[in-house]
């Protein structure tokens, strides 16, 4: 642990003159490589400053092999790097080469963009790649040949990561575009060992837990970070973020902490305590465009490096992190569909942790678990108010829907019944409308123009083979529609055309009659 002189470390940055897609750290953590479409450089970190040590993007033919979507640093032989190119190449770089160009070998094995390259932690010659073409290839770097190809069918591979060597020497995990996470044994290229349907939509990133071999973090376009128990094949923790997750990395020596950055919109790097998934434990908001890579300093939970599309390379110090929870007001209010209002607040207003977060860096970290305890200690009180005021409650709507009758009885009776229902609910205008409708039918059918309508009714009914209740209603509706035509020149609304349509439009009936009533 490099925590001997922690206070000397500072958050520092440097601009690399090009959007960065990925970064990787050398074995001893003294150098960092950044790679992107137009940048490929190595920096050393000394005395809180980045120094450019090497520019690998040199040579006469700066072709697409120099455009990297990912980069990996060999953790055994410190002079070896690998990069994944957007044109499908996997490129090996040797820093010991004497010539200016450090490009050692180009594998043209993939047919589509390579999304990830990853060196084995302890086997210097093993490199794995995952590509858009749906295959993963295990390279023997020394022999300059592909030793094994793993295929997931045609779905693109977005991430592939070796399991930490002490936990599973031969294992690696892969994430594909259709939401699956696959676990492979490199000795068994014919068959995937385990497959989890992990996300809806592409999985962009996976990360093995450094200490627990059963834990695997996965995240993707569905904005979720999931922690899986691989033994039980179950999600044990779930963090819902606000944007597609581009990368996740477990924090060393902190079992429940994981860092994440977003693919778009959200520029901050968040460190989550997976047990408290609703608010980031810490946030680093230095980048001016999305962060593209996170890498923790080996075994040091206080320092990590990040790269961004803004072209900046950062060394982040945990001390400088923002703690979003400190700025949150612990109170909430919400309203249910029934009109109930719930209100929750902290019983000790004013103590939100801000005052406790002062103090030295070490004390801060000793307190880290405490602080998450503190949230639970804040006893929040919740009140619920039931609200039965007409203005808020929609109860009348439900009751009306339940009690209104639209068929089964003569129309006059139906109208009277519905008017009573509306009255009971204190909706007098609506009740009036029903009565109006009742009168409309009552007068037209019985008294106003009996000679005109009576024969018509008979003739119509006789054309219909079955004299059923519903048919009568059609008839009534029809007459009514006619009246509308006579009064207004047109059918007012298609809602009247058939009883069934009218049934769908109860409220519409109410409203339209209100309108008519006021017009009259």
């Amino acid at each position: 642990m490099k925590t001997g002189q922690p206070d000397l470390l500072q958050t520092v940055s440097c601009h690399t003159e090009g959007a960065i897609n990925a970064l990787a750290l050398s074995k001893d953590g003294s150098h960092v490589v950044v790679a992107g479409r137009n940048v490929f450089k190595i920096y050393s970190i000394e005395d809180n400053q980045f120094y450019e040590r090497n520019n690998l993007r040199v040579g006469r033919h700066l072709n697409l092999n120099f455009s990297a979507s990912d980069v990996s640093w060999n953790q055994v032989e410190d002079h070896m790097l690998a990069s994944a190119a957007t044109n499908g190449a996997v490129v090996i770089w040797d820093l010991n080469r004497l010539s200016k160009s450090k490009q050692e070998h180009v594998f043209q094995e993939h047919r589509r963009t390579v999304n990830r390259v990853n060196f084995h932690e302890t086997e210097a010659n093993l490199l794995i790649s995952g590509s858009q073409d749906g295959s993963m290839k295990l390279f023997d770097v020394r022999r300059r040949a592909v030793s094994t190809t793993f295929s997931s069918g045609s779905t693109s591979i977005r991430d592939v990561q070796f399991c930490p060597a002490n936990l599973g020497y031969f294992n690696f995990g892969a994430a594909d575009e259709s939401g699956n996470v696959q676990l492979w044994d490199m000795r068994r290229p014919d068959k995937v060992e385990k497959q989890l349907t992990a996300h809806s939509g592409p999985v962009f990133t996976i990360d093995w837990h450094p200490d627990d071999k059963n834990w695997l973090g996965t995240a993707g376009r569905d904005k979720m970070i999931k922690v899986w128990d691989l033994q039980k094949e179950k999600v044990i923790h779930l963090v819902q973020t606000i944007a597609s997750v581009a990368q996740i990395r477990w924090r060393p020596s902190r079992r429940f902490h994981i860092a994440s950055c977003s693919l778009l919109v959200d520029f901050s790097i968040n460190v989550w305590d997976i047990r408290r998934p609703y608010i980031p434990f810490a946030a680093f908001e230095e980048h001016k465009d999305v962060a593209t890579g996170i890498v923790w300093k080996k075994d040091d939970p206080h320092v990590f490096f990040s790269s961004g599309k803004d072209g900046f390379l950062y060394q982040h110090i945990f001390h400088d992190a923002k703690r979003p929870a400190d700025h949150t007001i612990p109170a909430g209010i919400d309203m249910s569909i029934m009109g109930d209002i719930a209100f929750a607040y902290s019983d000790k207003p004013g103590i939100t942790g801000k005052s406790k977060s002062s103090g030295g860096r070490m004390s801060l970290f000793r307190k880290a678990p405490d602080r998450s305890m503190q949230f639970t200690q804040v006893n929040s009180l919740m009140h619920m108010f039931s609200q039965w005021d007409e203005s808020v409650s929609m109860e009348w709507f439900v009751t009306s829907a339940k009690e209104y009758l639209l068929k089964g009885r003569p129309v006059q009776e139906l109208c009277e019944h519905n008017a009573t229902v509306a009255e009971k609910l204190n909706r007098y205008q609506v009740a009036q409308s029903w009565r109006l409708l009742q009168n409309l039918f009552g007068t037209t059918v019985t008294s106003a123009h009996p000679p005109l309508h009576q024969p018509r009714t008979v003739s119509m009914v006789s054309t219909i083979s079955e004299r059923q209740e519903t048919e009568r209603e059609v008839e009534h509706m029809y007459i009514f529609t006619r009246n509308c035509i006579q009064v207004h020149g047109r059918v007012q609304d298609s809602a009247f055309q058939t009883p069934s349509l009218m049934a769908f439009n109860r409220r519409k009936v109410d409203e339209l009659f209100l309108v008519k009533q006021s017009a009259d």
Partner: protein
Amino acid sequence: MITDDLSPKPTDVDSLRFVHCLTSRDPNIRNRGFEMITRTIDTWLGGYGSPPGPRMERVNGGLDCIALVQEQLGDLLRLSVQCPFDDVREKCINLLEDLKERGRGLKVPRRIGDGPCRFIPENEVMPVNTTEDQTQMLYVDAFLQNNRLDHVTQLVGFHPSYLECFLRTQQFLLREDGPLPFDYRHFIAIMAAGRHQCSYLINLHTQEFILKGGDPAWLRGLNFIPKKLRDLYEINKLLAHRPWLITKSHIEKLTRGTGKDNWSLSELMHALILLSHFHALASFVYGCGIHTEIDHTGGHSYRHHSTSESNSNDTDYNSDGSSDGGIPTDSDSEVGIEILMERMRKLTEEEEETTHEERLKRFEKVESQSVELTTSSKQPSPKADILKFVDDSEYVYQDFAKRGSVSEIPTFRAQDYSWEDHGFSLANRLYAETGTLLDDKFRMAYNLTYYTMGEMVNVDTTAFRRAIWNYIHCMYGIRHDDYNYGEVNHLLERSLKAYIKTVTCYPERLTKKDYDNVMKGFKHSEKVHVNLMLLEARMQAELLYALRAVMQYMT
């Protein structure tokens, strides 16, 4: 829009809704609905309950009842042909026959054209009462959603799994919860279709616009619409023809004004998706020669059948005869399917080593070399009732390669801003669910294959499909790093490239001859398939530029 006195255009909601009571899955309801229609027509024609008197047309509040009936005949004619329900078609046919016999000054229309599109004989299109269950189900769905089974839907019926995505997306964009009011959505569709003078879509959405309670005044043209919609026009124009010119300042102009004419980002997202959807759909409409809907002007006629009229009334299109200059007439040199397959096989076998420079050159070559149909410079002259929705109609696609200063507008790298990673998330963020729907649709269009080519079966068509997709992106300056653009020249014949380019960029110039001359040996369903890919690839290309600009604005 009244251009023909014989076919009064129903312009009010009641009239348009008259036949909507037939839109039901339940045959009893349809039955009753039809009773309603018959009775109402009876009343209109015959007065009430008594034998028709000499001047009965003018009873019922002084309305011209004959005109009321006349308005409905187009719809009834359409239903007699384009309806997935046998009972409705049958009844409509009988009713029309009946009306014809009654006379009474009614002019009973007759359908023009045969089948949903000009390029494919009617008997080769999926019939409206097809026995393919999935397609039939979708036809019914479409009919219930839209109150019509439109020609586009019927034609896409070749590819039910795609049709499903397509209908779901279109329904969502136009009729479900979203940031924009319904009348806006349809007017935006009209504006988008106007860029290609696509009267088919304009008619369709004019009608929908009225149904959704839109202000009829807007239909008088762009000068009568709210400023907010008017502001969108610039982006509409760029998006349709030169999407690479869209920058974040365009977005800013729309969203960062003051007052009520501002667009929220969600509204704008909705509008952008609608615009690109209808630009691309216009390509498809022309690419397949979709016929005017039967109930729309130009879809039916009152005159007796005469041979000369069969083409001329299809107002959207170039008349066929005059287009000798169409596709480069080396059509006899077009290779057959077997050779194409041979080439694809070769591609997979010999992975040739190519240097970066070569690849770049190839991209540029494909980009600049793209051929177009030199339609003897005879462009269809758009009509006034379309032009009122169009501003700057001279503005058309220009080759990306000739875009002027190369340094200012670099090629768009698909690897740096892709639909799957970035576009999707942004779309979903600003307009929930659209991302998912579009994603399904793009993926469906890109991956759809039946492993056939013409008469051949078990063909891996991946290379061919990818070439088409990437060629379209190439025309819009979108470059896929991991694609060898040599394949485009290898697999796509000059004539096919010309066809693709015309349909994508200048769809209004396409003629039947062009359609017939490409992809010889392909089945019609496969040609429709290619057209669907054009639709989706174009839509994606437009969206990529638009969404990138939105993102740059947001961040």
